[in-house]
């Protein structure tokens, strides 16, 4: 039987959730028995090579590229899982939701105490993705099937959920594996 394929990505996240995934330690050897990694920063594949059973999304959507990538994950993955508080509720990047975008940009590129920008220009290269008006939780952009909260989710939470999903078992998390911090 061919192995299930799994894709992962970090959108507006800090890679902490991916670090937590690596924190499953030697169980990673069991994980590679269960899955083949498709698009993921873990193997540095930049695009999908085929259909995936599971997609893990770290981070919310803060720019147009995040939205494109998230939609592409939705298209390619049977089960999409929001991992971490940023994917679920925006997380720390969503602190900017209380400040108008223009003010954010001006603080970052013009007025901030450490800014040196004599031309007074804001970034406008077409290579730089446009920012959204605010940071959106992933499930407000595409349908998400499962949620694993935490900042980051504990390695044991990721392990418990992944092994259940990959072996067609119901995901049942005991009390101590649900954390929002």
């Amino acid at each position, binding site marked *: 039987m061919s192995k299930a394929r799994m894709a992962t990505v970090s959108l507006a996240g800090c890679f902490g959730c991916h670090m937590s995934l690596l924190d499953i330690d030697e169980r990673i050897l069991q994980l590679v028995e269960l899955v083949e990694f498709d698009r993921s920063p873990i193997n540095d594949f930049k695009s999908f090579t085929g259909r995936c059973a599971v997609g893990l999304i770290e981070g919310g959507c803060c720019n147009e590229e995040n939205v494109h990538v998230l939609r592409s994950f939705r298209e390619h993955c049977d089960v999409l899982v929001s991992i971490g508080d940023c994917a679920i*509720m925006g997380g720390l990047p969503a602190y900017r939701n209380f400040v108008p975008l223009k003010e954010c940009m001006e603080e970052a590129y013009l007025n901030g105490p450490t800014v040196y920008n004599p031309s007074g220009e804001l970034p406008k290269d077409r290579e730089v993705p446009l920012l959204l008006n605010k940071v959106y*939780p992933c499930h407000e952009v595409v349908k*998400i099937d499962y949620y694993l909260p935490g900042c980051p989710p504990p390695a044991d939470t990721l392990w418990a959920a992944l092994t259940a999903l990959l072996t067609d078992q119901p995901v049942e998390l005991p009390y101590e594996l649900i954390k929002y911090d």
Partner: protein
Amino acid sequence: MEQTLEFTIDGLPVTAAPGETIMAAADAAGIYIPRLCAMKGLSPFGACRLCTVLVDGRSQSACTQPAAAGMVVENDTEQLQGFRKNLIDMLFVEGNHFCMACEKSGNCELQALAYRFGILAPKYQYQFPQREIDASHPDVLLDRNRCILCARCVRASQELDGKEIAGFVGRGGEKHLAASSGCGFVGTDVAADDAALAACPVGALLRKRVGFSTPIGQRKYDHQPIGCEKELRPEKSSTTSDVQKGVAS
């Protein structure tokens, strides 16, 4: 001998003294009814509705409703637990709860209830409302982003501290807590060791400079669900099984 009333909660026999609330009788009998605005030692308020039970088929808040002889109370039913879960979801999306950066995390009653109900993500859309903080006082901080309008601080200040440090202003979505002075808490006689601060169930009314003092793993709700200290008979539904898909369609 003092008269006692007899009634049932989920079919179990419970006794109460005349005038005692359903919640107090349930606590004494080892039955946990979820709650946020009710707190032992403060007068009942009935704001959060989390303690809603069915009394002879009609909904009542257990923290305000006195027990009566022969009443049939339903508490741990799928429908009521579902309503409570929805209320918790609403509290999360109508405020700004960044638990990962909150001093109260691990000791917070709202977060602990979400854990107890196995909530992985709220089912409603996040509102990201604009809320002001009051950091005017040297020792006390009010972060309205996390305030759930339970009035525990208001009642504790009046009833336990003999003060009047804060009250509510505005109505509906605009309702918010404000210090009873024109210039914020610095203009009141609030003190860092007031019962009012200790009464706040969430990270809204805080003593400054003591946050994050308890290591992760040793905080109040790190290992045990809220309410379990009250329960001789644990509720049926305290893990995640049916709520994996946290956001409903």
